[in-house]
């Protein structure tokens, strides 16, 4: 009855990781990202076609008969680990996970969802869900009740999208981005642009009716929350590695600062947290891939745990780098801002704890 999770990385997944890491090192190193984040267009030029198209990362979740790579969540998670490590601006979590998984739920009927899905999987077009980045999986239903007069605030990667998936009370609509008003906001995390989206003036194409659309968006957000844990894992791993590297090289008081026990213990504790995050993130990806009965609980555990680990890792990275960690020049702040924003994305840790309380039968006081 209970699903036996596979928590390891396969050789194929490690090969995928190596390809993505090499691409990011070539096209999207920290100097490139730092040089673009204040332009309003942080996405490294040429990266998306190479990542989505050449490597095929945009279609990992999509079966081959629907135009994708026929891989799955475990492989997609590896890509997110790498994007987290490099704090890469790319509409991957939003487009290739949340929007793609939403369309996957609707593509079985053929029709416009299947056509759009194939274009997303090939990296030819990009779509994002017109919902605040903070929307948790259990918040899907509320999206469809949004009063029609309000623009949607805090839509991530909307500025990079060709198509917006717009929840309306009678279903989910595909709206060409050029027909909507997309107003960029000034985000805490400059590597994941946010915008206010007003799609009221555009008709769009209806992809699904009321009930099917709600379930599809819930599924898309659940996959997003579960795989966000892998982005947080990758980010935390990078922070720990950079901090250890710095602590070995930096000398004060005629010693490497990493030889002081006060600092060593902090890094060792962080390593323990990262070890836990790796297990939790792998479990979430595996549960999604297997369609496990306890997938929602496993995702909630991963989010409740990994979002805090990523923030702690980034905060330790800044502190243990000393003065250099406070500068704009050093990439630590990219990780800190991404980690802090990720803490709110797709449901806060507290929200996911509430889901655990519900699913594990640990109810709040009456």
């Amino acid at each position: 009855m209970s699903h036996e999770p596979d928590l390891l990385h396969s050789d194929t997944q490690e090969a995928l990781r190596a390809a993505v890491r090499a691409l990011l090192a070539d096209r999207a190193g920290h100097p490139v990202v730092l040089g673009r984040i204040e332009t309003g267009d942080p996405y490294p030029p040429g990266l998306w076609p190479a990542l989505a198209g050449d490597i095929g990362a945009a279609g990992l979740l999509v079966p081959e008969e629907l135009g994708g790579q026929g891989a799955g969540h475990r492989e997609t998670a590896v890509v997110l680990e790498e994007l987290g490590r490099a704090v890469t601006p790319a509409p991957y979590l939003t487009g290739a996970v949340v929007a793609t998984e939403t369309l996957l739920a609707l593509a079985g009927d053929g029709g416009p969802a299947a056509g759009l899905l194939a274009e997303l999987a090939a990296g030819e077009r990009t779509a994002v869900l017109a919902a605040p980045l903070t929307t948790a999986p259990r918040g899907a239903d509320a999206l469809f009740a949004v009063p029609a007069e309000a623009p949607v605030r805090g839509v991530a990667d909307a500025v990079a999208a060709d198509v917006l998936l717009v929840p309306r009370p009678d279903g989910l609509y595909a709206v060409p981005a050029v027909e909507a008003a997309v107003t960029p906001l000034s985000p805490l995390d400059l590597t994941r642009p946010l915008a206010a989206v007003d799609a009221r003036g555009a008709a769009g194409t209806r992809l699904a009716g009321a009930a099917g659309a709600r379930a599809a968006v819930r599924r898309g957000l659940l996959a997003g929350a579960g795989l966000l844990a892998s982005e947080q894992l990758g980010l935390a791993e990078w922070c720990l590695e950079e901090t250890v590297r710095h602590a070995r090289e930096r000398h004060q008081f005629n010693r490497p600062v990493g030889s002081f026990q006060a600092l060593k213990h902090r890094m060792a504790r962080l390593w323990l947290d990262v070890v836990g995050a790796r297990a939790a993130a792998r479990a979430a990806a595996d549960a999604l891939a297997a369609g496990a009965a306890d997938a929602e609980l496993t995702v909630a555990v991963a989010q409740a745990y990994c979002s805090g680990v990523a923030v702690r890792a980034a905060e330790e990275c800044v502190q243990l780098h000393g003065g250099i960690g406070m500068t704009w020049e050093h990439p630590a702040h990219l990780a800190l801002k991404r980690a802090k924003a990720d803490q709110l994305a797709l449901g806060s840790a507290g929200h996911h704890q509430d889901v655990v309380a519900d699913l594990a039968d640990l109810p709040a006081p009456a």
Partner: protein
Amino acid sequence: MTDAADLRARVRDLLAAHPPATTGRTDFLRARFDAGLAWVHHPAGLGGLDAPRSLQAAVDAGLAAAGAPDNDPGRIGIGLGMAAPTLLAHGSDEVRARFLKPLWTGEEVWCQLFSEPGAGSDLAALGTRAVRDAATGDWIVDGQKVWTSSAHTARWAILLARTDPDLPKHRGITYFVCDMTDPGVEVRPLRQLTGEAEFNEVFLTGVRIPDAHRLGAVGDGWRVARTTLMNERVSIGGARIPREGGMIGRAAAVWRDRPELRTHALHRRLLDLWVDSEVARLTGERLRQQLAAGEPGPEGSAMKLGFARLHQAVSGLEVELLADDGLLYGDWTMTRPERVDFTGRDAGYRYLRAKGNSIEGGTSEVLLNIVAERVLGLPPEPRDDKDVPWKDLAR
């Protein structure tokens, strides 16, 4: 190489020749050892078949399913987890043939004479002396050991003693097998804060050990001890647990059964710890999968550190959750238990006993140093004791 199918056949043969229903417990265990099904990874004749260690679990499960008795590992943990790997790695043929079988069957209980009042985290500073008797070649041992579990039931002990005080501390130590029935061995219970005496103090006065019971070369005891201590951490941190296994299951059950005790503050802490416990469980599961795939990671060090913190936090929460009942304590009677039960008894006991989890088997502070230096590659703290003769060290 022996494979899973061979082992299944050997399990069938053992059960056919020695039906558990009609065979005495010790007779069955001896036959199991002789069949090579005790430790399948051991050499033939020493309880094994040179098979991969990963096949042991299937053997254990197959025998348990047939109603076969086990060797009660909770009672002989020191022997199984620490003495046996060391005897196998460093014992002479005679030593291995003499000791491993009764160790595994539980006919002879083992204990460990390592820690001393003046040598805890800095174990290599130990001062128990072993002096060679020129006439017989035997070693004469004098000193005091502490925190010795099972000393009062043990037949044998693994012992570290200083054989050359003029060398730096790591180099003058030798590793022995000590006869606990020697008239110079005195065992006194050491009562701990839970009220019971799970451990002992052991006083050694003129204890005689034949040179044949030395493991490894004279002065090489520290290296031999590393085999033992590596296995201690595996045996403490490696137990498999289901979701809500261990302490969190007890606290969760109280939460479900006693709604009148629930508060918002305790709810948040319970959920924090439930998530942490589930992540610790998954970390252990991942470690097991790595071991099975032949790629052991350093995560083993994480397990003991994580469980120590969790046990302490969860048991503390449970005492608070129980409110009026949390003020009670089951039994302060001084007893000498043969086994430790971290998750048993009442919440107050678990809270107090868990305090030892971050001390026994390496303090959490020392383990964090080990993680920092061996896993992360951080530089060691400067040390001024490594090249000083032991006799000149401050103590």
